[in-house]
């Protein structure tokens, strides 16, 4: 049997940023009000619906919850799904952003 | 090459008879044997044919038989429905399941005719499936006797190869009974 040939077909291993730094695609940025966020308030793991719904896997299920803005495309699904209304989408370059 | 065409109806074991004859001929030492159903869909009760080709050398033709050397008719009602003689070479032997005598079987054209009461033999040996007599084994016996091509002992071996032990004894006795009872040209009464 010949040696294995990993380049015989197109293939990649999962890694962050396979399509580049997608954070610069963003028009709207998610901003979390941790006083409303359920895990942040109760100091124990709960909710995390933003983590669950994020299609890009950029939400870190920590306390407090963190969003990796290098890769967040700003789709707003997290803000839509948050039951505590803790996430607001704010225009990039506008008030409250840097 | 010897070409045998089997005429019967779906459910009578026509294809199986053609297979057993091929297997028996191979065991007897013929290097080339094929058996095939008529290509296409099969339906219970509808007329159908199967074929067996037997040769001293390996067979290199899979075309349908144009003119058989021997025709075996499992269902005598087909004589009125199908042009059986149309696919039989001039002077080719025809073996018919019928209680009638050969000269009364209604076959013209100067073909040698061998007859056996296959249905009667099947009933006597309890070869009955869904109320109908299984006449394929008796007709194999008649074939062995009338054609003098594949011998009875090899057809017995063919049955042993193909049939389950539960039905084998009845089939073997029916085969031998039919072999003895076959009447036709050159066969003593």
């Amino acid at each position: 049997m010949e040696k294995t040939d990993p380049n015989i077909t197109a293939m990649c291993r999962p890694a962050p940023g396979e399509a580049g730094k997608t954070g610069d695609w963003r028009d709207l940025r998610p901003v979390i009000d941790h006083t409303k966020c359920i895990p942040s308030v109760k100091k124990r793991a709960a909710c995390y619906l933003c983590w669950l719904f994020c299609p890009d896997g950029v939400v870190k299920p920590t306390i407090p919850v963190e969003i990796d803005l290098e890769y967040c495309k700003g789709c707003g699904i997290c803000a839509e799904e948050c039951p505590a209304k803790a996430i607001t989408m704010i225009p990039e370059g506008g008030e409250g952003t840097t | 090459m010897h070409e045998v065409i089997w005429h019967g109806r779906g459910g009578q074991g026509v294809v199986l008879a053609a297979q057993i004859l091929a297997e028996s001929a191979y065991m007897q030492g013929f290097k080339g044997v094929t058996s095939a159903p008529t290509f296409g869909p099969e339906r219970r009760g509808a007329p159908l044919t199967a074929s067996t080709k037997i040769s001293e050398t390996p067979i290199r033709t899979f075309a349908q038989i144009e003119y058989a050397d021997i025709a075996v008719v499992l269902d005598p009602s087909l004589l009125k429905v199908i042009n059986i003689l149309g696919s039989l070479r001039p002077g080719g032997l025809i073996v018919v399941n019928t209680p009638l005598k050969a000269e009364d079987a209604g076959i013209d054209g100067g073909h040698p005719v061998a007859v056996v009461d296959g249905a009667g033999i099947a009933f006597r040996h309890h070869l009955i499936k869904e109320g109908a007599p299984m006449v394929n084994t008796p007709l194999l016996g008649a074939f062995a006797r009338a054609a003098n091509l594949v011998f009875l002992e090899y057809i017995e071996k063919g049955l042993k190869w193909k049939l389950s032990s539960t039905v084998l004894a009845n089939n073997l006795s029916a085969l031998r009974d039919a072999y003895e009872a076959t009447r036709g040209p050159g066969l003593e009464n």
Partner: protein
Amino acid sequence: MSRTEILTGNQAAAEGAKLCHIQVVSAYPITPQTSLTEYLSQAIESGQLKAEYVRVESEHSALSVCIAASSVGARAFTSTSSHGLLYMHEQLHWAAGSRLPIVMCCVNRGVGAPWSIFNDQQDSISQRDTGWIQIYCRDNQEIIDTLIQAYRIAELVKIPVMVCYDGFVLSHTMMPVEIPDAETVDAFLPPYHAHTILSPEDPRNINPVTFPWRRADQDGVMCDGYMELRYKLQTALEAAGETIAAVGRDFAERFGRDHGGLLWRYRTEDADVILTGMGSIATEATMAVDALREQGIAAGVVGLRVYRPFPKAAVREAFRDARAVLVMEKDISYGYEGALCSDLKAAFYGTEISAPIHNVVAGLGGRDVKARELAEVTREILDRIAAGQPEGPTTWLNCRTDTLTE
């Protein structure tokens, strides 16, 4: 010990698949292939064959299952006919593009409309450009032997193989078949090792979107783009011819049966006219050649086993001394001529071979092809050639063009 049994083509294929220790079977029933999958499902149900039979709702899914199974390192098998093969069309490309050594039996059948369940080779010929190796079998012995060779070839060159044989004519006709013994097959066919094993321990994205340019992988290393990967498939297919021939020679040494590798010849040593074709029509042509020789015509047969990769060098060699060529085939590229005829002409281009080439389309939709008819049409065409007609219109053998309804 090998043993000889009287088997249909479908039984021979099932026995071959069992000897190859296939691990996953996924297939959908279609006439005339159905009994092959029935034999395999019985063998799995009874425990005789240790494999998974994955039931699916379509042929498209059947081949998808085989692609997935082969991707995780399992030896996968499927089979189909006619419309089932056409329904697999998209997945045929995926299997070849993924370089997965899947083996499929295509039990050749005509394609609708109108409906036909009977034999011709339009189904597999119409899939020739999907990147699969295609091998055509002339009898049931060759079916079982080719299936065993097919896994060895597929796993060496990492290209799927389609083992094609004529529906009903072979699939439903019983004839003596020597079934090799398992130990000899095991020595001939080592276990399958996948070129890339998809596994949860080492997750990968296989076949991501590629762009018209080369691509960087996750570590920034530049990898082949679409065009480079397709070039690799093409060069692998071109080189596969030598592997197929070598596997055939090795098989002949171990099993004592040589099917000819890329092609086989019958009475061609001194032949003026060569009849050629693929599958059972070439077997029938050997009978026609015997008859023609009795009539004083020096005829021979070149039977093509391998249609893709097209064995250009081998056919150039085989037809070098031919003074007339008759290409008999059960397919047509509508609007032109038989596909094999075109390919042969292209292979002869620029060589010394200048023999007249006549195309005979035969046996479409199961019309019986008899040796007598092949011999007759050969004589007619030789007469046409003698009358100065180097290339005639395609002959439709035994087609009642004289009584067409208006």
